[in-house]
């Protein structure tokens, strides 16, 4: 019995000693906890976000306001809200991060919201695109985009260019439904007519039924929202194969379908597709050139072509650096959010601003066409709608 007593005593002593935090490190480093998927089917999300962050740090150095900036990455492996929440809790209580960033997927961001509210830690969303995320906590801001924000301009452009009748095909899940809802709302408000709509199941290898339905309805255009990757490819292929392009039906979509990262794999079937999006790797501006150069320098070729998530990662670090400079390295949650509200800068995508009321991003949405530029497929911008706020709020 005595042995057990002394064992327990030692353990309790160890516990209390261990409770001394690593507070010293906080004085010289700014830790940013990056929560995203780095493995599994969404591995590209985390990979791109981190690559963009590294690009910024390569270009601007890894020190700001006299402190070193350190990225602490944690893998959620995909949509795993309880893991994301736990990682956030651990990053805040154990690693003592001053910022949380990343969040490629909406459920992960939603689950973490109450944590940052309680701990008063600023959270910068680098990708998750559902409108309502920023309403879940006053400590959340977003530098990427929302789905309604890029869907509405597509409807506006279609109306402006004589397309009055559209058939919508979206994947049957949150983002798809958001896109369909917003597009339909904007399109109908401008006098357009929705010829029909179909929602395809999320696990869907074969699009012949959906494409056939579109063909039967013979609309002027079909608006598509599908997860980037094989679904987008399959639909576009089916679209071309069944002769819808020859029949004069236009294919319009949000830029998620022609994601720069997978555009090369989608092949020439995508030529002529018109999409609306906030970032194209082919955007010509000095900021984008600098970003692309830093991206190539900071990452090895395995990471692949940069896309909107990398650009968002880059801008995430920008926000963090600016806040650090304004607060002279002493990060306080409320002061940080005050500094973020209303922040304006020129991002690789164009001019952007963080709306002071919603803490969400306001930016220019471009209308692009898929063309061959220097022998490679690219989303070439030819029209734009500036200062688009998130219409979902």
């Amino acid at each position: 019995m005595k042995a057990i007593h002394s064992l327990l005593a030692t353990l309790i002593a160890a516990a209390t000693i261990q409770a001394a935090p690593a507070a010293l490190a906080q004085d010289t480093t700014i830790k940013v906890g990056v929560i995203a998927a780095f493995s599994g089917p969404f591995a590209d999300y985390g990979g791109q976000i981190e690559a963009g962050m590294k690009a910024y740090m390569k270009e601007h150095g890894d020190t700001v306001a006299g402190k070193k900036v350190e990225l602490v990455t944690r893998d959620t492996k995909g949509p795993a809200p309880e893991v994301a929440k736990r990682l956030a809790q651990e990053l805040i209580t154990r690693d003592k991060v001053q910022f949380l960033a990343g969040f490629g997927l909406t459920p992960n961001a939603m689950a973490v919201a109450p944590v940052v509210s309680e701990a008063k830690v600023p959270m910068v969303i680098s990708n998750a695109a559902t409108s309502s995320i920023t309403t879940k906590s006053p400590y959340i801001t977003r530098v990427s985009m929302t789905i309604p924000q890029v869907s509405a301009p597509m409807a506006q452009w279609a109306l402006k260019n004589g397309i009055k009748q559209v058939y919508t095909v979206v994947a049957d899940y949150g983002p798809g439904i958001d896109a369909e809802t917003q597009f339909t709302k904007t399109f109908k408000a401008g006098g357009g007519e929705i010829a029909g709509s179909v929602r395809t199941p999320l696990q869907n290898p074969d699009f012949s039924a959906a494409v056939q339905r579109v063909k039967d309805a013979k609309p002027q255009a079909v608006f598509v929202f599908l997860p980037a990757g094989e679904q987008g490819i399959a639909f576009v292929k089916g679209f071309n194969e069944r002769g819808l392009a020859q029949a004069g039906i236009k294919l319009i979509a949000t830029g998620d379908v022609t994601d720069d990262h997978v555009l090369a794999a989608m092949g020439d079937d995508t030529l002529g597709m018109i999409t609306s999006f906030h970032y194209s790797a082919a955007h010509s501006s000095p900021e984008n050139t600098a970003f692309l150069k830093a991206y190539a320098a900071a990452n090895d070729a395995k990471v692949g072509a940069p896309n909107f998530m990398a650009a968002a990662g880059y801008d995430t670090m920008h926000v963090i650096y600016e806040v650090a400079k304004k607060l002279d390295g002493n990060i306080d949650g409320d002061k940080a959010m005050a500094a973020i509200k209303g922040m304006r800068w020129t991002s690789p995508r164009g001019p952007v601003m963080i709306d002071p009321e919603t803490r969400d991003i306001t930016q220019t949405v471009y209308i692009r066409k898929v063309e061959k530029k220097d022998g490679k497929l690219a989303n070439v911008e030819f029209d734009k709608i500036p200062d688009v706020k998130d219409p979902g709020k």
Partner: protein
Amino acid sequence: MTTEAAGTARPRLPNDRWRALEVAFWLLPVIAFFVFPSYRVLGSQILITGLFAVSLDLILGYAGIVSLGHAAFFGIGAYTAGLLAVHGWHEPLSGLVAATVVASVAGYLVSFLVVRGGDLTRLMVTLGIGLMLWEAANKAHAITGGVDGLSGVTIAKILGVWGFDIGGRTAYIYALVVVFVVFVVLRRLVHSPFGLSLRGIREGGKRMPAIGAPVATRLRAIFTVAAAVAGLAGALLAQTTQFVGIDTLGFPRSADLLIMLVLGGTGRLYGGLVGAAIFMIAQDYLSGIDPVYWQFWIGFFLVVIVLFAHGGILGGLETLRARWRPSS
């Protein structure tokens, strides 16, 4: 006292006495609470997943039903508890009970489909049901939140005293107490004549009717119990994380659970707990290192366990122990 050849363990008659090792095992999470205060959230999730794994062991290890859709009941329990909280019923303990009841009803209904057919049929039926439930939860996104998840799950203080905190202290103790209580009940069940008859069914299902044991009824009963416990675990997760994701019903969850259980060792009630602990701790530790390697090594260990280390970790420990102390 007959002398035994080295390496054979004397067969024991089944009894329900708590062995010293079991007591020591349950002291571990209590000690861990004090020694690893910054890992409490992980600890609570390990306990919950461990209970979930034990529920799978009931049908897999004890009754021999291979299921790839057990997460369906976990998710049903989670959504029940979550929806109750979102719609105004914040009391946690009654939420747990409600979730368990709903999950057991679902389990009872599914059990009729599962007792027919061979292994592949059961595998496909459970898989199919799991997938359909996922589709249903996605379709009903107005209620469940779909892939975005169900947020706003606010839970009142347990018994009016203990609220859930960011450090996970309340979550840990709540999970530990509930898991322990349920485990004790299951342990009693498994060591009872009913539990022994399950083992009989697993080993020789065709012979059981000869001794008067109705196979289908018993299988349905244990399937319902397993579903109920899985639902309870799901509700615990929903309440301690204040969120319900659609991944609670998904196939990856069922598959990971199977791996954890096999890792720990099937048919030995503690296998689920041990497997869950080791799997989740390793995953947490290695998630900083290149994740592609994680998947490779899990695959590798699965192959190795199946080929050489049958019975998982607990099986291996048992063999070691039998060799070391032949007269125990």
